[in-house]
């Protein structure tokens, strides 16, 4: 009888496995927190944070990992929102998850078109093209009758998930939104840590080298753009079902600016940065709106922005990671 020795892991591999276990434990803890959260805080507020967090994560995929600053991401948020809103209000038989699916598909389609038009440009020109395209969409949304123009699309029914789970209950709605968020987040995490993600990183660091290595750079950028647009649309569609409303605010260029702020504040190029940033911005807006300081939201966000650009370019999560690495490695 041959005795087999268990494979002895090298210290490096042991460290790696421990780090991975720590990471998974961290994720599990966060999910647990998310599950308990609606009993601690107002669920509708939490859902708003989750939708914007998804929006910011989608934006960050493009900026932080592909290195492309889009100034027109509001267009995708709004497309998802309006398409879903319109379908769910006009076809009561349509279940919410189908409505969201179709809304997201619309955003993916738009992303493909806008992506093809804008990918050929770099840097500031790319940003300007995305801005212009978003403005055209804004104009379309104002004029199109189905959006309700200035009044917005309201009275969108929450409906019954899969045909039998009523989403009118805030708690049920919350868990659905949480699930959607987890899906989007997981998708981004997998994309970033995949071979595809590695190529994106290479393109971001040195595009000409990536080209010389034989990668079809435009193709990679386009795919990243479409994924980003689709997830932004998913965020918009879900948000419309939560608030039962889609309006021009979602399509305005200020919204595009806000998502940039959230991402920068939280930490560009980190997975959790956009989530933290979105949480902070939404909370700040919420707290200030109910106080006499209501109208200082703009300047306060501006100050935070300036401070971030000057000293905390890595954002909150980025700075935390830096400190962690410095002290624990």
């Amino acid at each position: 009888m041959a005795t087999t020795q268990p494979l002895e892991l090298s210290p490096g591999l042991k460290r790696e496995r421990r780090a991975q276990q720590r990471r998974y434990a961290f994720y599990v803890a966060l999910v647990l927190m998310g599950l308990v959260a609606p009993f601690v805080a107002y669920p509708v507020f939490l859902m708003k944070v989750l939708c914007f967090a998804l929006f910011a994560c989608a934006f960050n995929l493009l900026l932080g990992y592909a290195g492309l600053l889009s100034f027109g991401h509001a267009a995708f948020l709004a497309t998802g929102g309006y398409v879903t809103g319109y379908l769910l209000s006009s076809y009561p038989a349509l279940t919410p998850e189908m409505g969201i699916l179709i809304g997201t598909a619309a955003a993916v389609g738009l992303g493909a078109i806008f992506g093809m038009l804008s990918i050929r440009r770099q840097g500031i020109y790319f940003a300007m093209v995305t801005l212009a395209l978003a403005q055209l969409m804004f104009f379309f949304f104002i004029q199109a009758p189905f959006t309700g123009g200035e009044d917005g699309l309201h009275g969108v029914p929450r409906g019954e998930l899969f045909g039998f789970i009523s989403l009118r209950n805030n708690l049920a709605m919350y868990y659905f939104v949480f699930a959607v968020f987890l899906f989007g987040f997981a998708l981004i995490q997998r994309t970033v840590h995949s071979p595809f993600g590695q190529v994106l990183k290479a393109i971001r660091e040195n595009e000409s080298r990536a080209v010389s290595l034989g990668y079809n750079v435009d193709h990679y950028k386009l795919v990243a753009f479409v994924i980003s647009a689709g997830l932004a649309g998913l965020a918009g569609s879900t948000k419309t079902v939560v608030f039962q409303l889609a309006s021009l605010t979602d399509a305005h260029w200020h919204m595009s600016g806000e998502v940039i702020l959230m991402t920068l504040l939280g930490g560009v190029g980190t997975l959790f940065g956009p989530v933290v940033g979105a949480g902070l911005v939404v909370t700040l807006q919420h707290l200030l709106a109910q106080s006499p300081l209501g109208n200082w939201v703009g300047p306060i966000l501006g100050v935070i922005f300036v401070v971030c650009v000057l000293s905390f370019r890595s954002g909150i999560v980025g700075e935390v990671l830096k400190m962690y690495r410095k002290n624990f490695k």
Partner: protein
Amino acid sequence: MTMIFGVPLAVFMGQLLLGLINGAFYALLSLGLAVIFGLLKIVNFAHGAMYMLGAFATLLGMRYLGINYWAALLLAPLVVGLFGMLIERVLLRRIGHLDHLYGLLLTFGLALIFEGSLVNIFGVSGARYPTPEVLQGGYQTGFMFLPKYRAWVLIAALGVCLFTWFMIERTRLGAYLRAGTENPALMQAFGVNVPLLITLTYGFGVALAAFAGVLAAPLYPVSPTMGSNLLIVVFAVVVIGGMGSILGAIVTGLTMGLIEGLTKVYYPEAANTVIFLVMILVLLLRPAGLFGKEA
């Protein structure tokens, strides 16, 4: 009555003239932006706020210091220009070595601060600034009543544009400026104080915006958000013209004014949007803009 696509000739000519005046205004605003980007590679998102500060300086100058319009034409750009130089020296210089996207983000944050703070102090409703006496009333040109003030805006804006173009493209100072941004190290070695040049340039670009603000005060309500909507239009103009090109900004500004004017006659709902359509077309066909050079 002669009709052009259903519009009487007189109205058509009037709209073209108005479009030209608006265009001169756009040109003036884009000029400052083009100067700052072309020479400093900074995308100045605070440009709209500077324009607004110029208008406010004019309004407040009259309200509290009794400064009249003509004095304001000189003083407001000066004050705002100095303020701009302060911003450059204290804030922008710190990120000068980074990716230019950070300049965009910083100035975006500054715009939020300036506009938001002023909204809290002055509210959002615009205040009226009276048209200077000498320029009240108008001329009956035969096809339209042209307010004297608007004729003045056309002349002043074009004048300043041409002066700026001349200064940058044809004088020694302009040459230093252009060289200083292409190769700062070399210029520094020749003894030119490049950082000072950069600060002055930013101040000048911002002063141009403020000058446009003074011109705007008697025309539009002076409100803290007056620059915010104009800003993206002005960006579109600069991008179409070619991001570094002074001549591009001037020519495109005038042309866009005309196109927008015509749109207001035939399809007015789209008047705010036509410029973005043009921008997309231009960027697809001539990526660097009409007068730009591909980086």
